[in-house]
């Protein structure tokens, strides 16, 4: 920077009154076919970026992001599963040497060593050579780590039946139905059905939602007596009159 006496400033500021030229550097003397980043290379990069963006948008269009049912802490049947890039850590904890009394190995020592080594790689692999064959230990360690991460992720993900999982955990639209607790069929619903089908007919892991049911009144009555699919028979244990009221309650709540 220009210093010393004779410097001119803009007004009373510290901005130099001397203008610098706004001309790109000339790279023609640089080795090889060096290019200027601005604007030559950026134009090509821009094109590659656009292609990437189109591919990315096609992915989001083809596979809408998943959303499961609202969190239900009482759902004991739910099998938790982390996002795919944490699966290898999750799977590691299933090995005997990394679980139970040795859990410290699984949660701290093994991942700590791996990620610590990654962080300090330049100091562990401090020879001058950059080519992979000049630093076989570092390269082999990385390949081993990479293989085990891929293997752990694969074994963890291979057991999961993703489609059934998504099917079982479909989001249920927020119910806008009002439960008419004064309805004469409500008492029967409460004592016979609510445990499995939920307080607002919204369904639970044990029973399907009754909101949006496609069965007719007669069919509902039969199912209540004889069961269907995973639902055993004789779930409803009242008189025929109570059954009629119950069916009317379910149908009328559905009509809202």
């Amino acid at each position, binding site marked *: 920077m220009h210093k010393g006496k004779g410097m001119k400033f803009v007004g009373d500021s510290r901005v130099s009154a001397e203008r610098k030229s*706004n001309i790109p550097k000339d790279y023609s003397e640089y080795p090889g076919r060096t290019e200027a980043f601005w604007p030559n290379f950026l134009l090509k990069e821009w094109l590659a970026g656009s292609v990437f963006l189109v591919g990315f948008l096609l992915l*989001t269009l083809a596979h809408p992001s998943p959303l499961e049912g*609202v969190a*239900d802490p009482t759902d004991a049947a739910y099998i938790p599963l982390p996002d*795919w890039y944490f699966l290898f850590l999750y799977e590691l904890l299933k090995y005997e040497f990394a679980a139970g009394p040795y859990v410290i190995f699984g949660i701290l020592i093994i991942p700590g060593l791996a990620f610590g080594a990654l962080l300090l790689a330049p100091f562990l692999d401090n020879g001058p050579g950059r080519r992979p064959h000049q630093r076989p230990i570092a390269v082999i360690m990385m390949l081993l780590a990479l293989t085990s991460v891929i293997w752990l992720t694969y074994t963890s993900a291979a057991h999961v039946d993703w489609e059934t999982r998504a099917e079982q955990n479909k989001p249920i639209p927020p119910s806008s139905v009002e439960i008419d607790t004064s309805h004469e069929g409500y008492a029967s619903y409460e004592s016979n059905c609510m445990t499995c089908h939920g307080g607002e007919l919204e369904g639970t892991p044990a029973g399907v939602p009754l909101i949006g049911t496609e069965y007719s009144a007669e069919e509902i009555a039969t199912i209540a007596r004889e069961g269907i699919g995973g639902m055993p028979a004789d779930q409803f244990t009242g008189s025929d009159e109570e059954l009629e009221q119950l069916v009317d309650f379910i149908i009328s709540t559905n009509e809202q």
Partner: protein
Amino acid sequence: MLQKIYDWIDERVDITPIWRDIADHEVPEHVNPAHHFSAFVYCFGGLTFFVVVIQILSGMFLTMYYVPDIENAWKSVYYLQTEVAHGQIVRGMHHWGASVVIVMLLLHTLRVFFQGAYKKPRELNWMVGVLLFFVMLGLGFTGYLLPWDNKAYFATQVGLEIAEQVPFIGEYLKTLLAGDAEIVGAQTLTRFFAIHVFFLPGALFALMAVHFILIRRQGISGPL
């Protein structure tokens, strides 16, 4: 006209040197895919940055609808997903971007590793990069809870149980993250929201700034 506006500003704040610092840098032949196709491996870092920009923009739009509260979090996401115009696309970009950014980060890390590009004098930039990787994993972990669906809730539960098993500080760590020693609930959601939207992005921006300043100062590593 534009030139006059530029000159007017330049006379007062002298922006030309700043602009030349940003614009003027060379792209050596060995990193330019136009000359050597295999140089596409040098794109992964740039693509990571590109996806991060997508994440920031889509995330900003998501917060326009998202409510970090256990009553409404899931409902607001469901509403965004089903009712809001293009909501599904914006959420889809954020959801898939979270995965794509990890893939790109991994590829970028592997490129730098196998080329030995972290060797002297670039040790510091490698460490900043690994820290960026950790921050990104943290963003993934905290972002997972926010939709407050079963998947989110139970995965977070497991994550917090793992944190609890850390010797000595485990229980404090869990309380710090979850807001309570036992309950994964309203406090947890607001904490994860704050971490996901303010704390970690702050760290991310600071580290990215260092990462980029260092690479501009040192230049890209030479050909093998």
